[in-house]
């Protein structure tokens, strides 16, 4: 019953959609540990910075954006003007503009509502997993329905785990000591996630430059350093790519 409501009536398309959706869930599964650790940390941080449990839950359910939430919290706690809080959230989320541009070629044929829905669920992990997989495949003309359902599977995993772990952090908050180093678990999970993606000289160049620039620009206000680092990294990767291409032709 639920399956029919979710994947459609026609057995053949429903089968294809379901297997693409499950494939997405399978791909995202290992990364969910990182998200769970992060969600827990964010949940605890929200109640510890003075939000009520309901405000914290609302923030997590509506925004679904860990780094923007974490950036806004100290400002809310310090009674900063509302426009400063909003500006901070906007700047911290600037990398999502790059992500939405990256996703566009794969979802361009979908109706507006679906494009917006898929955009809403996009985060660092879902974007990275999906695009790093698709960019090694042929151009996105065919199988766009499969791509959509694959992405939906990834996003189901990330959203659900994020909300459950955030809620756990919110309601158990006080009982979790800060010395557990949960935030480091999330970083290690990201390390495991990104390493297989760093394949080939252009990706290596991009990773190196993004790392160095991110550290150098870490003191930039509003986490702008992150955006600068991403742009610098992409530029370096493209430069390396062009250079390799020229060398190969000679």
């Amino acid at each position, binding site marked *: 019953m639920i399956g029919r409501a979710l994947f459609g009536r026609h057995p053949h398309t429903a089968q294809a959609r379901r297997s693409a959706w499950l494939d997405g869930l399978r791909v995202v599964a290992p990364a969910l540990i990182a998200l769970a650790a992060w969600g827990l940390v964010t949940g605890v941080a929200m109640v510890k910075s003075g939000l009520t449990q309901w405000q914290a839950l609302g923030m997590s359910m509506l925004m679904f954006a860990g780094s923007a939430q974490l950036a806004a919290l100290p400002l809310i706690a310090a009674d900063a003007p509302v426009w400063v809080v909003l500006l901070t959230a906007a700047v911290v989320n600037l990398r999502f503009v790059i992500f939405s541009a990256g996703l566009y070629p794969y979802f361009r044929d979908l109706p507006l509502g679906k494009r917006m829905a898929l955009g809403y669920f996009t985060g660092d992990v879902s974007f*990275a997993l999906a695009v790093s997989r698709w960019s090694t495949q042929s151009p996105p003309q065919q199988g766009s329905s499969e791509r959509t359902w694959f992405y939906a599977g990834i996003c189901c995993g990330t959203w659900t785990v994020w909300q459950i772990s955030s809620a756990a952090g919110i309601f158990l908050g006080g009982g979790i000591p800060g010395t557990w180093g949960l935030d480091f678990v999330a970083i290690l999970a990201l390390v495991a996630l990104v390493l297989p993606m760093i394949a080939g000289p252009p990706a290596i160049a991009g990773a190196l430059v993004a790392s160095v620039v991110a550290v150098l620009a870490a003191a930039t206000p509003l986490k702008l350093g992150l955006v600068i680092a991403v742009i610098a990294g992409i530029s370096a990767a493209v430069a390396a790519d062009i250079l390799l291409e020229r060398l190969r032709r000679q």
Partner: protein
Amino acid sequence: MSSTEIWLSIVAMTIITLATRTVMLVFGDRIPLPERVQHALRFAPVCALTALIAPELLTEQGAWAISLANAKLVGGAIAVAVMLATRSMMATMGIGMAAYLALRHFG
């Protein structure tokens, strides 16, 4: 902030977040991206993730901290080695975390 102000901020931040996540998905037809830019965006995942990780491992209190006394760097380096050797996410996180905690408590 009053409760109303906090709720207003949360709703406004939700709208802002949604706008950044959907802007190019919605206006992609009207803001055509050159082929070269679309091609370049395939490197975005690697760059975004490494840019998130690097400051966590390589700095302490906002300054470069490349030394064996930096428990996060040592734990991270060990995690990289474990991942390259085993391709196992659980082993990577387990061993990296154990190294980090050991160094922090006994280092």
